[in-house]
């Protein structure tokens, strides 16, 4: 299979969907010149009527996408950073996400939101490094975070075709990674986890930019005689709980490796899930390795200390196994 970069795979997906469906339009800041790279060349192929540079009015253009979607369009809205969700928050979670339900099931709101460089990049500090998916999950918004080029294209295309609002988070750390991507049209369905590595002793559920880290950690653990299974949920809502639980039931040991804040974060949700539904099988407490609950600091040593790290994951995995062997 040909190998292409994650960002390029996303872009292919977007172009394919725009060719397929004339109701797909794109809105966002600097999308014509494509500061983020996702929309490069789009005006050339699709003309100015399908791509809109917006003013710095995130609340309004988010709401506009909702209205356009209710009226039959299929907007793709790009946000430059996670923090922009804050200023658009009411329009996202209190309008777009709620309207269909509140209207008694009338209409559909097929909007795809995409944050093309999601989460922390290096040294962007407190307002440019958040990874806010727990807030969206709490409010019921469908959210995916692909971690391979193949899934990036497949999940983005699936999101665009979905008749509900879907947030697509593309971790900044993965945009330049290369991987095999099938030719031709395909989608990766929402709601299916990916077993990134099989193992028998321990389940690591890793999210987004942490998946490659978890895979490296699994190699280290293998050398120590611990066979770790690494699961990439990739679709956070809907969540493929069965695949996660199955793995936990097999290994009896779970470590969560999550890129969001700790309190009421995604790892908390997973821990609650395992504690409830894999209870019988668990042979050690479920451990969470997450971000610390502070804004991401600027200086590199501070930043590294606050973000989840492979070292801490390894410690947690070892402790988790030791707990039982002891």
């Amino acid at each position, binding site marked *: 299979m040909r190998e292409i970069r994650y960002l390029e795979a996303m872009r292919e997906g977007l172009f394919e969907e725009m060719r397929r469906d004339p109701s797909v339009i794109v809105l966002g800041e600097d999308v014509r010149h494509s500061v983020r790279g996702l929309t490069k060349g789009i005006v050339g192929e699709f003309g100015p009527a399908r791509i809109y540079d917006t003013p710095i009015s995130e609340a309004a253009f988010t709401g506009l996408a909702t209205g356009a979607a*209710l009226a039959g369009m299929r907007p793709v809205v790009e946000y430059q950073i996670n923090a922009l969700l804050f200023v658009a928050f009411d329009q996202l979670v209190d309008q777009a996400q709620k309207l269909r339900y509140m209207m008694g099931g009338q209409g559909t709101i097929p909007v795809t939101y995409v944050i093309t460089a999601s989460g922390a990049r290096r040294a962007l500090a407190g307002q440019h490094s958040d990874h806010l998916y727990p807030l969206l999950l709490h409010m019921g918004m469908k959210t995916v975070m692909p971690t391979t080029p193949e899934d990036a294209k497949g999940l983005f295309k699936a999101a665009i075709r979905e008749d509900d609002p879907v947030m697509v988070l593309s971790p900044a750390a993965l945009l330049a990674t290369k991987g095999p991507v099938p030719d031709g049209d395909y989608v990766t369905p929402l709601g299916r986890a990916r077993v990134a590595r099989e193992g028998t002793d321990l389940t690591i559920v890793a999210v987004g930019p942490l998946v490659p880290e978890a895979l490296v950690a699994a190699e280290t653990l293998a050398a120590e005689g611990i066979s770790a299974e690494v699961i990439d949920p990739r679709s956070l809502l809907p*969540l493929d709980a069965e695949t996660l639980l199955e793995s936990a039931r097999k290994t009896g040991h779970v470590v969560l490796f999550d890129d969001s804040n700790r309190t009421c974060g995604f790892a908390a949700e997973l821990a609650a899930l395992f504690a409830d539904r894999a209870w019988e099988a668990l042979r050690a407490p479920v451990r969470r390795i997450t971000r610390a609950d502070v804004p991401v600091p600027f200086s590199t040593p501070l930043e590294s200390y606050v973000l989840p790290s492979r070292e801490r994951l390894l410690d947690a995995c070892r402790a988790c196994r030791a707990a039982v062997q002891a």
Partner: protein
Amino acid sequence: MGELTRDQLVGFYRTMRTIRRFEQRVVELVNRNDIPGAAHEYVGEEAVATGVCHALRPDDVITSTHRGHGHILAKSGDPRRMMAELMGKSSGYNRGRGGSMHIADLRLGIFGANGIVGAGAPIACGAAMAAKLKGRDGVAAAFFGDGATNQGVLLEALNLAAIWKLPVVFVCENNGYAISASIREMSPLHHLADRASAFGMPGDTVDGMDVLAVNETASRAVARARAGDGPSFVECLTYRFVGHFTAEKALGIKYRSDEEIEEWRQRDPLVTYPAWLRERGICDPARVDAEVEAVLEEAVAFARQSPLPAAEEALDGMYATTYPGLPARGW
């Protein structure tokens, strides 16, 4: 715009009368606990919704507010399904999920009442953009109050509509107050329409107690939008004759003088307009009144007879496409 026909003139009255009587029944039903929750009545402001919505086509879109009954009725909303919704019945517009603040009928272009002040404005912009992109000449009207003119998203929406020349009419219902807060204190402007020029669109201030004046100004704004000349801002000076919501009396607050209320009541469109119709011999308003009564009687009866939704339905329909485990139950 052209002359208004007799049917149109009578139609204005029918709509206004329907709104007034609908709201009066709502008050009764809320007080009797037949309608639960909060309802924000439109009593006194009927000429605004009526004048604006009669300037729209059936395929045009509106977005409404927490005070939405009038807009919805004026856009041909079905009083039966509205009343049923207010009572939380499964025959209601929203199958009982929405209640007063969320009534919608997408097929009639009613993109929903909205519980959040100002939030409907960008949604109207989106509907307008869709019409434009689909090569239709549809128009969207966004209703909002004086208080909403200080909500960021609304101001952002004005700008978006202007730069993209969207076919939107922004209808500001200036009833002088946001709950207890006088717009005189909440805005430095004498005319809220003066905010429009800062967003590159024409702004007009019109007597919102005069349905003909509202209709004329709205028709001009709609025609402008339909012709592709972009958005307009129409400020309608109006007044609510009642409290912010049905339950206001129980709060024991007083922020408007009796004289002020009385002055505005003198201009009640449900008094002045039928008098005008009668004087000119255009119609006998009493006939219309009787028709309206029958319609509302039936609406209330329909709502009462309708069943409540089954509890388990509460988890349906959140998503157009669903998946195992979605939405999460709480137990």
